[in-house]
């Protein structure tokens, strides 16, 4: 079920990216798409009845059924890089506002 929600989130993010004309809204759409993609990648490795991929004193053997750890490691990387791109985009947006006085793409270049 969460897998289908993730696909709908990716679609909504693309829709926002195509229709919005505000820079902050575009960055928000990118973030929504990123969350959907992360959920989708993690859901690919989910095993029904599996346990989280950490050996503890309770789940103490590697022969138990674990959830796939590889997609989780990849998503961990993706989230941190997402912060980097978001911060860079917001810095650009702040500079654009200082030059044009607006966030709307349609109102720029009319000074």
């Amino acid at each position, binding site marked *: 079920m969460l897998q289908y929600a993730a696909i709908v989130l990716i679609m909504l993010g693309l829709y926002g990216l195509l229709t919005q004309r505000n820079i902050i809204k575009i960055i928000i759409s990118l973030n929504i798409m990123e969350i959907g993609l992360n959920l989708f990648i993690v859901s690919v490795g989910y095993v029904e009845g599996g346990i989280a991929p*950490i050996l503890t004193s309770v789940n103490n053997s590697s022969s138990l059924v674990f959830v796939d750890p590889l997609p989780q490691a990849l998503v961990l990387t993706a989230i941190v890089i997402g912060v980097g791109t978001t911060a860079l985009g917001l810095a650009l947006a702040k500079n654009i506002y200082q030059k044009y006085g607006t966030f709307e793409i349609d109102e720029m270049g009319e000074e």
Partner: protein
Amino acid sequence: MKNFLALLLTLFLGYMIMTSLAANDLFPDQGAADVTTRVSQKYIDRSVNGDVGEVIFGQATNLESGPANIVTAIVADYRSFDTLGEVTVLFVSSLGVALLLGGPKQKRLELNFHPNFMLRVGSRALFGIILMTGIYIAIHGHLTPGGGFPGGTMIASSMLLLYLADDEFRAKIKGFKMLESAAGSAYVLIGLAGLFLGSYFLENLLGNGILGDLLSAGMIPIIYVLIGLKVGSEISGVIDNFLTEEGV
């Protein structure tokens, strides 16, 4: 009209994703994945270099990769080179933010509200707790969920709290820059030490110890603490850049 076209394109994308998912072995339905046929099973069994039998918590010694948290084993040991690249991407992005927002004459951004007494005292009290939690998460990255990235970000959020509590506060940003470069260089130096003293880049030179102990897994706690320090100082720098503006 434009919105309608965008809606059509989005629906087409959704249709394509759904068709590609039907009867696809690589992307099974949620819950139907079979880990034993994937490469991940080798990471769980620690059997990339040969089968070692069952791995038991608290007993297994001399594994090829020591952390009890399998995600950490992948991020900081099997795929540590990827993580080095990731840290580099974060460094480049913080460099870009500093280039775009920084300048020679910087002063603190004046917020519309002023912190009252309760906010000041509460933030000072919470600052220590959040800082300690961040360090704890970074140090225990090989045993519990978390690791260097959330731990470092938590350290940066404690700095953010100090920014909110005090109108005049500015972090010692030069010290943070030193810490960041020192941590990043130490990561590369550990990798080079593995290359020259051992046989390959980022080889785990220390012994792995018993799986599940705090002092186990060789280099991995050291690497994760370095990553935590680097990420924390980098993101503190980004927050500082966002909270300053061109001065008079």
